[in-house]
């Protein structure tokens, strides 16, 4: 006997709804298309926990499953507000994200560096050594660079606004083309 078309989809849909209602989904995710490619968005009940670029999606899901919980389901509804704000950001109608972030996974130093990173205003940039001074470790520009590179929530935590001293682009987890695109979008690069 085969299962009629659509029955599987309907059953899965209903299962997702019940799993969510019964509080069994510890990590919810969805994907969205953007001008910098497909993005993975993942959230815990505490907030947005991960944004990953297209080529990192599989690896990111495996890591979330291993470090947070394997009760990980595709539930676009939970990411609705994140998607809405990203859509507005990419169409230049939103400059500051207003989202709850889950920082549970971050060590104290990375957390401090990313808090400063999040405070860099739209359309402007800071250097690794400026950030190092701001977090009180002026000689730790390299460690700051690593912390910025470990940003699990790119775009929303705008690590693309961190450049080398002197204005060279430096690096970017998602590749320099994406960094250049985001800076141009914000009018920081011409």
């Amino acid at each position, binding site marked *: 006997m085969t299962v009629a078309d659509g029955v599987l989809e309907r*059953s899965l849909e209903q299962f997702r709804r019940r799993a969510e209602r019964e509080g*069994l989904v510890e990590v919810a995710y969805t994907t969205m298309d953007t001008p910098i490619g497909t993005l993975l968005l993942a959230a815990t009940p505490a907030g947005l926990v991960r944004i990953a670029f297209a080529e990192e999606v599989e690896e990111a*899901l495996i890591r979330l499953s291993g470090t947070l919980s394997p009760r990980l389901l595709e539930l676009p509804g939970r990411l609705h507000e994140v998607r809405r704000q990203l859509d507005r950001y990419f169409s230049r109608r939103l400059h500051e994200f207003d989202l709850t972030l889950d920082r549970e996974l971050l060590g104290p130093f990375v957390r401090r560096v990313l808090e400063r990173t999040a405070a860099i205003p739209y359309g402007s940039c800071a250097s690794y050594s400026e950030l190092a001074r701001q977090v009180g470790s002026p000689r730790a520009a390299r460690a700051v660079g690593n912390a910025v590179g470990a940003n699990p929530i790119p775009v929303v935590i705008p690590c693309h606004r961190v450049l080398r001293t002197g204005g060279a682009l430096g690096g970017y987890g998602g590749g320099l083309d994406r960094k250049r695109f985001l800076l141009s979008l914000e009018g920081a690069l011409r």
Partner: protein
Amino acid sequence: MSASRTRQLSLPPFEWVLAEHAAAVLRFLTRAAGVEAEDCFQETMLAALRAYPDLQHGTNLRGWLMTIARNKVVDNGRASARRPLPVEELEVPAAPTDGTGPDTDLWELVARLPAKQRRAVGMRFVEDRSYEDIAGAMSTSQDAARRNVHEGVKKLRRSMR
């Protein structure tokens, strides 16, 4: 079941488990539970999701899901006062060929236990239910529930040697 297997496995996201096995589980339930297949499917997947993070053996997830599904068919038959399906007659889908680890054999052995022992073992170790719970679900005393689990485990130990 074996105390030596305590290493924390990193399990794939449950979404991937669905992608790989949900269709097979639903096909099995459609054969085994007819019009109640969709209800059984919900119960099976919710029980699986609940128990998933504590799973000690990730090598034969298909067999694990089928064990839960078979139990849900029996529970469902009892609850709705339908004549319970003689589970031995259900067609047991073959284990996936990729799962060649020791757990593949384990689930095959579980599937071959007598019905009462298989249900009791499944509820205890697959769904992590209490003896009180198992006794309730199988309409037996708690002593009988313990005995069924114990006998089932003994038989598994013997056949794994």
